[in-house]
């Protein structure tokens, strides 16, 4: 009799299509929450009572996505993981792409801030404005290599799966 797969087993064998959806959910949920709050709630276009469940759903998407990515990637990224050379090559590639993405984001942000400072004068940074960035950094920075790995790792071929049984 076959044992029912546990949640961990299911996460470990997520197909790439699902993994990519999880990455999108994790990385879009919180930014959408912040943008929505600042554009809709703070401008009184949407009442807080209506926004609250949407905000909770977006936050759940992000946190749930990050948790799934962490669990999926843990056996592949942990320092104690016994990886072969192909798996190490994939992990190295994920780190390289991750740093590349971070570099682009940092460059775009710096450019945007420089433009704003040039045309609108000095930028006043308040803790209220900085907090969402700090939360995003804390949420996404450690997850980035796992997310890239989840995005690029191909699904096992059918004969690979048969070989594993």
């Amino acid at each position: 009799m076959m044992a029912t797969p546990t949640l961990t087993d299911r996460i470990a064998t997520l197909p790439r299509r699902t993994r990519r959806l999880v990455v999108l959910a994790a990385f879009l949920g919180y930014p959408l929450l912040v943008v929505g709050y600042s554009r809709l709630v703070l401008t009184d276009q949407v009442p807080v009572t209506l926004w609250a469940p949407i905000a909770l759903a977006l936050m759940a998407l992000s946190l749930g996505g990050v948790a799934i990515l962490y669990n999926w990637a843990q056996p592949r990224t942990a320092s104690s993981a016994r990886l072969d050379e192909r798996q190490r090559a994939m992990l190295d590639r994920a780190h390289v792409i991750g740093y590349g993405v971070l570099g682009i984001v940092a460059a775009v942000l710096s450019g945007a801030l420089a433009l704003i400072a040039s045309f609108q004068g000095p930028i006043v940074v308040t803790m209220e404005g900085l907090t969402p960035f700090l939360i995003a950094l804390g949420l996404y920075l450690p997850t980035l290599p796992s997310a890239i790995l989840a995005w690029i790792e191909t699904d096992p071929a059918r004969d690979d799966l048969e070989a594993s049984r």
Partner: protein
Amino acid sequence: MAAAAGRIPDRDVVHNRLPLLRADRGISRSALADALGIHYQTIGYIERGEYAPSLNLALRIARFFDLPVEAIFAIEPFGQLGADALLAHRDVAPEH
């Protein structure tokens, strides 16, 4: 340098006879992977030409099959096996 799994440019493809050798010796992908201490999926990636093994791994595979490495891996596609090779284990001379 081994390219990352998934997509590698044609010029980096390493052709191999692993599926043929495995079938000939009756060795499963997971048995070969276990013997070499690598993940079973890595054998599949190598066989499909989606991952070029390091020299170290190529040599270990060659040692496992007790063959020279160039009999298993090549940068040019392998030609079809001729009658000589197919009948080599028999005492039957190939017909020409």
